């Protein structure tokens, strides 16, 4: 049985194909159409999933959509009514999209991919819950989902048992932690729904001096449920998400190119602490209510690895699971998994141990592309390759690393990565000047051999999807200065030999040279571009940047060999 899951029309469009309960393929549309956080109908991602599964569109039994469009439209219309006449510009902006695409998904499916079968619609937060629990290693667990907004719900919790999910309670729009975070992201001069991670990084540079002001905006009950004072916000009332009252409280907003002041860092820090505080209260109450020992988290808010780490440390749960595409892209996976397991009542037979569900390219394809680009390259066997690359890393070179299937989700986890030497204290400046052009306060992440992670980080469990930010052990911080954030944490990826043997071997070879079983791993993309997907994308980024070398499967291209 083949089930295609789709998420689109808000941000992070994606498709996922499940065959008899096993995820065969999953990919985000942005990787194909090269538009970051693309919200378009994911026609390229769907075509890829079909191709990867060796089936035709006629073989799809069900299509699952990650939310209920009419229910969402109900909320949108009611919100326009409530904010009339101030929502006029938003109305003009959003209505054509609703009328053209969002309310006519079955027609779009027929037009774009010729699918005439059954389309099932799974509620937004149920899709999130399913995306985590149904592919987790747990037989039963509590589930918490949190993001900006779904149809009405902004946060929901319940339990999962076997192949069924029961949602107990939810909080509804406009009371949303995710929207608060996005509002502050925009207020601090970054792009809402895209650069929340930047605010998270900025938070470490400040002090929580505005925490009480955030507490005043919210009314929080002892059970963790909350409402926000809507007079501070302008949701749907104009281009700005915050009101004049908000500006009076926190000061003037920052424009995109303005200098970052201490006040901005303090606001980001206070926001981060506040969100942590609320989510910890909620998770503790969920523990008391469900008495489960394991917790599955999903929704864009749980891409915040600092929050995840706090939950792991301070809530009473023993284990947590978050799949790599915790944001809306994961909704495609959740919708498909929910249809197969919960609606069609099929037993669970898949645990998500790796994120490598995207496109791969054969050696002959890569060779042809390199020849087309007139590049001089060398081919190595597997053993030589990892040694050669490890040596280059040890010499402080920056390496573009392109291997196997692309990752599903926003993190590059060793198949579409830029690698560097974490022992080099100047590596951050080097990467920022040569390739990434990031804000100087943003940290880079370490990829560590799974079995050695405990030596360097205060970890309670594995972090294969780079979704935890534990403290770096005191004695080890000077060894890996390139990946330690100002607050002494690091966004760790633990690399297992079973799930990514080549990447594991590379780190092992690096350890043999330097004594450190860690490499710096950042996503293979240039500023404001999606992560590379194809060898052409990789070569393009390599040419535009000042990376020292590019490794595509077994082929190594040196910058000096670049024929312009």
């Amino acid at each position: 049985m083949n089930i295609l899951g789709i998420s689109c029309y808000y941000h992070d469009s994606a498709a996922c194909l499940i065959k008899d309960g096993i995820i065969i393929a999953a990919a985000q549309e942005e990787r194909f159409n090269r538009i970051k956080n693309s919200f378009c109908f994911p026609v390229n991602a769907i075509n890829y999933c079909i191709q990867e599964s060796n089936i035709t569109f006629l073989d799809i039994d069900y299509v699952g959509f990650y939310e209920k469009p009419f229910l969402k439209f109900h909320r949108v219309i009611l919100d326009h009514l409530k904010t009339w006449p101030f929502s006029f510009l938003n109305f003009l902006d959003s209505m054509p999209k609703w009328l053209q695409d969002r309310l006519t998904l079955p027609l779009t499916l027929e037009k774009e991919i010729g699918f005439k079968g059954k389309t099932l619609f799974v509620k937004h937060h149920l899709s999130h819950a399913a995306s985590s629990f149904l592919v987790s290693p747990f037989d039963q667990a509590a589930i918490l989902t949190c993001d900006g907004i779904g149809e009405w719900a902004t946060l929901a919790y319940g339990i999962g048992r076997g192949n069924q999910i029961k949602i107990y309670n939810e909080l509804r729009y406009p009371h949303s932690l995710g929207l608060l975070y996005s509002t502050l992201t925009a207020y601090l001069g970054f792009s809402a729904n895209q650069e929340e991670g930047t605010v998270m990084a900025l938070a470490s540079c400040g002090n929580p001096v505005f925490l009480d002001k955030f507490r005043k905006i919210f009314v929080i009950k002892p059970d963790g449920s909350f409402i926000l004072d809507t007079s501070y916000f302008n949701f749907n009332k104009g281009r700005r998400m915050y009101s004049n009252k908000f500006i009076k409280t926190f000061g003037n907003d920052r424009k995109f190119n303005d200098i970052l002041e201490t006040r901005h860092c303090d606001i980001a820090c206070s926001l981060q602490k506040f969100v942590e505080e609320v989510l910890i209260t909620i998770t503790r109450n969920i523990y008391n209510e469900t008495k489960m020992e394991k917790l599955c988290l999903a929704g864009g808010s749980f891409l915040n690895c600092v929050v995840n780490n706090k939950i792991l440390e301070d809530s009473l749960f023993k284990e947590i699971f978050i799949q790599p595409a915790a944001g809306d892209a994961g909704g495609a996976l959740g919708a498909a998994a929910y249809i197969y397991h919960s609606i069609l009542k099929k037993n669970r037979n898949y645990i998500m141990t790796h994120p490598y569900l995207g496109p791969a390219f054969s050696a002959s394809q890569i060779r042809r592309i390199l020849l087309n680009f007139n590049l001089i390259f060398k081919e190595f066997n597997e053993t030589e390759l990892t040694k050669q690359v490890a040596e280059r890393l040890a010499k402080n070179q920056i390496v573009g690393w392109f291997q196997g299937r692309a990752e599903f989700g926003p993190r590059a986890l060793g198949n579409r990565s830029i690698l560097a030497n974490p022992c080099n204290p100047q590596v951050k400046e080097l990467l920022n000047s040569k390739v990434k052009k990031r804000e100087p306060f943003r940290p880079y992440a370490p990829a560590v051999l799974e079995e050695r992670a405990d030596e360097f980080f205060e970890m309670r469990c594995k972090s294969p999807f780079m979704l935890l930010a534990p403290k770096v052990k005191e004695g080890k911080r000077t060894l890996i200065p390139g990946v330690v954030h100002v607050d002494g944490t690091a966004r760790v990826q633990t690399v297992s030999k079973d799930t990514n043997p080549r990447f594991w071997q590379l780190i092992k070879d690096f350890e043999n040279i330097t004594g450190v079983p860690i490499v710096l791993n950042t996503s293979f993309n240039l500023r404001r571009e999606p992560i590379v997907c194809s060898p052409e994308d990789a070569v393009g980024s390599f040419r535009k940047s000042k990376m020292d070398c590019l490794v595509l499967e077994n082929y190594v291209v040196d910058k000096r060999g670049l024929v312009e």
Partner: protein
Amino acid sequence: MYYLLRKIREITKFFVRVIQRILLMIFLTILYFLGFGFTLFLLLFFNRKVLNINKKCNLDPTFWDIAEGYEADINDSIRQS
């Protein structure tokens, strides 16, 4: 000749799209100010409850809403609402 016809077709298509867009904007503007305005007026006088959906009172013992519509039912999932 073929090139010319194609060009004419493209230009016509472009103008049709622009006119379509303008008409849609006019329609949406009328709908918003008259349709929504009138509906809001009716709701304010006859069914204010609809506008107060999800409104909470600080004195409520909890702000949690009981989750509804999350059943694993194929007939429910066919519906878009």
